């Protein structure tokens, strides 16, 4: 167990392509860190540099107080779980899990004992003599975990370990990984493109885009205070709704939802940022509500032509399109490209998560309310969050 420090780490490929630029992160002992971002954002490259599978172009990688830039992977004492599991097909489950110990020259009896303990923990005891080919996906994933656990390394590195599992198993394994990590207290660096995994697993989350760190923070902080449009759009499911708007004097903002007066707290930070003019307003789905259920809580109301209603039991999802310009920014276009969601219906598509008691019907217009104290205001040009800037 150890702390890991990435100090101005850069990865540049021989052809000049910059994969990771100026990555700074201090991972505390026992911390669970998630690297998240769309494909090609440099998160796996970063992980491979920590593992020693890729050279570090510039900067320092420090594990347990030692600079390990030039150490071979085998001398770094860290274990890795691969997306493909990378189990040795010619070895039994037991041999797979005991392989790192065997290489370390541990005697057979100890190997047997340690593999047995790990197998117990992962519920693999009755499969130890089988070959990986005869296991299910979930079992293989657990063997890969077991191989990382047995040698009690300084840190775990996990490269999208759950991506090859079906949805139900993924949720199960997610909680299991979380439990194992908490029990062992081993420093863990976990790469994923799935924001749900990032939100549920990590102590802290690092959001990356095009080789650059966008924001580092606890899941709750990222959710409530995204630093820019990219983080705001990436974190959260369903994702945040964005409306282009105009900031006017006196703390009012005009969007497709009409004119709204921002609460003092938001206004103050906006004044501090000295910003007027073009902005993009972000509102999370759950910050909408049926106006008739709200009472007189501060906020703004508008009429929404409801297209589709999905009753989930606990909540109601209402989808509608507001006429007006669609928010355009480099950040949002990148996100849309990543999710393949590049269709536009000639207006702003909005998702609202309402209370189960909300009176909304398909094809009818409904009076909706939104919580102005929770809105995020982004600079239209730079994508920076103007509200978070002062905080």
């Amino acid at each position, binding site marked *: 167990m150890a702390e890991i420090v990435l100090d101005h780490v850069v990865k540049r490929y021989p052809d000049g392509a910059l994969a990771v630029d100026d990555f700074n992160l201090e991972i505390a002992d026992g911390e669970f860190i998630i690297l998240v971002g769309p494909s090609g954002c440099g998160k796996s490259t970063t992980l491979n540099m920590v*593992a020693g599978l890729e050279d570090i172009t510039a900067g320092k990688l420090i594990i347990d107080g030692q600079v390990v830039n030039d150490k*071979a992977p*085998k001398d770094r004492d860290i274990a890795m779980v*691969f997306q493909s599991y*990378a189990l040795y097909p*010619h070895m039994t489950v037991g041999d797979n899990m005991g392989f*790192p110990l065997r290489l370390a020259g541990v005697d057979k009896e100890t190997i047997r004992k340690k593999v047995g303990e790990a197998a117990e923990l992962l519920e693999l005891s009755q499969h130890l003599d089988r*070959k990986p*080919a*005869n296991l299910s996906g979930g079992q293989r994933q657990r063997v890969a975990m077991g191989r990382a656990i047995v040698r009690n390394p300084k840190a775990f590195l996990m490269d999208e370990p759950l991506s090859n599992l079906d949805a139900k198993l993924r949720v199960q394994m997610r909680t299991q990984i979380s439990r194992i990590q908490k029990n062992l207290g081993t420093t863990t660096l976990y790469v994923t493109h799935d924001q749900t995994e990032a939100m549920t697993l990590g102590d802290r989350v690092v959001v990356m885009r095009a080789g650059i760190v966008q924001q580092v923070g606890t899941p709750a902080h990222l959710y409530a205070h995204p630093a820019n449009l990219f983080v705001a759009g990436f974190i959260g499911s369903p994702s945040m709704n964005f409306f282009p708007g105009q900031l006017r004097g006196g703390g009012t903002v005009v969007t497709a939802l009409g004119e709204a007066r921002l609460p003092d707290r938001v206004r103050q930070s906006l004044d501090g940022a000295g910003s007027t003019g073009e902005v993009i307003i972000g509102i999370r789905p759950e910050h909408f509500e049926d106006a008739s259920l709200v009472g007189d809580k501060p906020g703004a109301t508008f009429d929404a032509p409801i297209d589709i209603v999905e009753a989930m039991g606990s909540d109601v999802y209402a989808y509608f399109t507001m006429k007006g310009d669609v928010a355009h920014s480099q950040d949002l276009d990148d996100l849309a490209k990543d999710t393949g969601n590049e269709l536009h219906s000639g207006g702003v598509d909005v998702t609202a998560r309402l209370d189960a008691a909300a009176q909304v019907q398909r094809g009818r217009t409904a009076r909706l309310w939104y919580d102005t104290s929770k809105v995020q205001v982004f600079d239209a040009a730079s994508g920076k969050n103007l509200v978070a800037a002062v905080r």
Partner: protein
Amino acid sequence: MTATPTSAAAQAIEDVADDGTVQIAQQRHSDAKKAERKLGLMLVAPAVVIMLAVAAYPILYAFWLSLNKADLRRPDDNEFIFLDNYITVLSSPIWWTAFGVTMLITIVGATFELILGMGLAIVMHRTLVGRGLVRTSALVPYAIVTVVAAFSWRFAWTQGLGWLAPETSAPLTEFWPSIWIIILAEVWKTVPFMALLLMAGLALVPEDLLKAASMDGASAWKRFWLVTVPLIKPAILVALLFRTLDAFRVFDNIFILTSGSNQTSSVSMVAYSNLIRGLNLGIGSAMSVLIFLTTGLIAFAFIKLFGAAAPGADAGGKR
């Protein structure tokens, strides 16, 4: 049982109906299977006929000849002598010397070919720049006609003529030097072939496994020995099998280099001498059949001893 009689009866009728449909479905299924099999047989029939004509007939005819006293110098004495030819061959020191020489060339040659071929395969697999050039140039020896290559080796080792030949002796006129030169010519010629087969195996080893092994603490040598080799075992087996069978039938290199002088004949050379030069079809055929049987045994031993199953499958070939 709380079911009323009527519902029980209805259930029974339903069961019958079910049985009927199931039977019809099964019948149709097996009819389709039969038709498919018939079509399959018809489609392979032409190929089978050709194979019978060009492979089965000569083999069976050679086997028949080996049971006869068929000597073209005395065609009138032709008679059925059952296994007499085999007894003659198997009690002849010429045959056993040739057998020993062939085995030596096969085993030593295949060993060197495997080691050098593996090295070449790894180089070709790992080359990043000029990959095409490296692969092409490595394959040149394999592209040269064996007889042409054998002639150049012969000139190279001829005293007073070749660049490899020593001043004071003629290596191709002595037994051991000849054997080593034959092995050298064989190895030089077939290492690229071996490398090609092994490289195909290397390409199938997932990069992730090697990365995982290095994370698990394996040095380069251990990664090769504990991960790569077990995974490419099928490729090694195929390459070794092909080479052993080929090497056991070695002919052209020896024919050109020494013509079998100083007891350097291989079994194929001896069979050729008896059959074509000596015109003794019976003895020659008996030798051919013995060579055929030996290669069959080698192939069988390979499959049985090393197993041909892919790694990871529990139903391995080792049982």
